[in-house]
């Protein structure tokens, strides 16, 4: 199969990048369309496996529960120490516009 047949469309790349909140440069879009096409072709061989009646592994092992008890936690000062921008005891972000 040639590269041109296995590549993703730029529209698909743009759609997924938007879902992932990721701006892409033009050359990154091109490269991802090609490379992801090849990776998807490779992982597509999973279609060969007979999975009739097989349950998916949705969890590696088991949940380990503990009592839900109050305990000391980080102070606002410590929790905000890495904040790129803050206002009082809040993380400050740009305004939220409605997206289409």
């Amino acid at each position, binding site marked *: 199969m040639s590269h041109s047949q296995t590549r*993703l469309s730029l529209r*698909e*790349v743009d*759609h*997924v*990048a938007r*879902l*992932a*909140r*990721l*701006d*892409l*440069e033009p050359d*990154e879009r091109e*490269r*991802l369309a090609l*490379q*992801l096409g*090849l*990776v*998807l072709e*490779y*992982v*597509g*061989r*999973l*279609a*060969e*496996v007979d*999975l009739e009646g*097989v*349950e*998916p*592994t*949705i*969890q*590696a*092992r*088991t*949940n*380990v*529960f*503990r009592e839900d008890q109050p305990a000391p936690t*980080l102070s606002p000062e*410590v*929790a905000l*120490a*890495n*904040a*790129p*921008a803050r206002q009082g005891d809040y*993380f400050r*972000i*740009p*305004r*939220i*516009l409605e*997206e289409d």
Partner: protein
Amino acid sequence: MHRLAAHQLLPRLRHRQLRARDLLEQALGRIDRLEPTLHAFLNLQADQARAQADRIDAELDAGRDPGPLAGLPVALKDNLCLQGMPTTCGSRILETFVPPYDATVVRRLQAAGAIVVGKTNLDEFAMGSSTENSAFGPTRNPWDPGRVPGGSSGGSAVAVAAGMVPLALGSDTGGSIRQPAAFCGVSGMKPTYGRVSRHGLVAFASSLDQVGPLARDARDCALLLGILAGHDPLDSTCEDRPVPDYQALLERGVEGLRLGIPRAFLQGLEPEMLASFEEATGALVGCGARLVDVELPHLEYALPAYYILAPAEASSNLARFDGVRYGLRVSGPDVAAMMRRTRAAGFGAEVKRRIVLGTYTLSAGYHEAYYSRAQKVRSVVSRDFQEALARVDLLVLPTTPIPAFPLGEKTADPLDMYLSDVYTVGVNLAGLPGLSVPMAPVQGMPAGLQVIGRAWDEARVLACGQALQSVRQYHLALPQSGLLGGGKA
């Protein structure tokens, strides 16, 4: 001193033939000489380490016991949180992030008296097999600085291999401890999923990630795993099970054990790697083990399943890096633009590739065909391992199909890079313990024998590594310092 394993250094420290401060100064001196060539570290804390070493010396002088690792310098992969020192994950997006708490494994190391000297280089967010994906430049292999050290825990493997520190921590999602251990000629273990806490490990693929030891030999892996292992209420996957005394069980040997070889999976292996593997398994037969061919019919599908599941989990885990609470922020007119620009500027090429791939396979219309299918393949791969390990005591494989490759050789072809994990990822999918120990060199470079055990049976896996190291000396070989431009060492 840099040739000695932790278990050889400890009695010298305890009997005061060696001072923790002197050992630390030698480690720091060696790091200083070799770092310009190797770049194993992203951050050092010499002064804090010196203060800690002096404290350990004072306690030992006073006849007190500062813990089972007292005075040993250790290195941490830079995706493990150490309070007060940046945790970058090899990424621009976390370049300025200083964690407000210690990872549980770091707390346990410190409580045992170990001295953290610094944080080691890695592929960005542990995504890679060569440490070339670090935003802060690659690490080089001490056996040949023109070659990669493997990855993603390449810095930790090199720090041990070059004799900078006797012990280091790594993390392993698809082979990221075992593959660099093999490439650098050291021993490294991925424990059973759930054996070691991940609290304070920056998450990559949460259903696969485990923290584990890198060390000079199997005995030191046993020593370090004994400190790391055990229940932690802060990680809800970390199970409350007794932790065996791994060191006490180390000399059990392999007499009478059945070692399974998935023979079909070795087809096409380079003759020199196959010969090295057969020499190592032959040595284990000499120790009383019996080799049994086993079938793992779905093992060939482990790698494609992994490259759906791991990026899917990564795309979700890395959503937290959005410029709001920590790390880089690139401003924008609204919050969505700020996030898109921050992530565009902060993530490197491989991380973007996996985020986009993972988002794609989870997106509407593709979820069933890719993600759900891969989860089912994971089930059949796990079942294969369980059935094989019901017939045999351990499985053995080469850790990697090829030895360390030249820098730059695979960076342009992601798929080719992914293939270097072909022998390791199945163990992560099945959640089993796996150890890599050095076997005979291939192309003049180190190679690794991988020993895989039943869940929770690290003790037997380590005993098998120890059995090999009691009859072969590959683990004692050290790279020549002359090659490293380090002069006298």
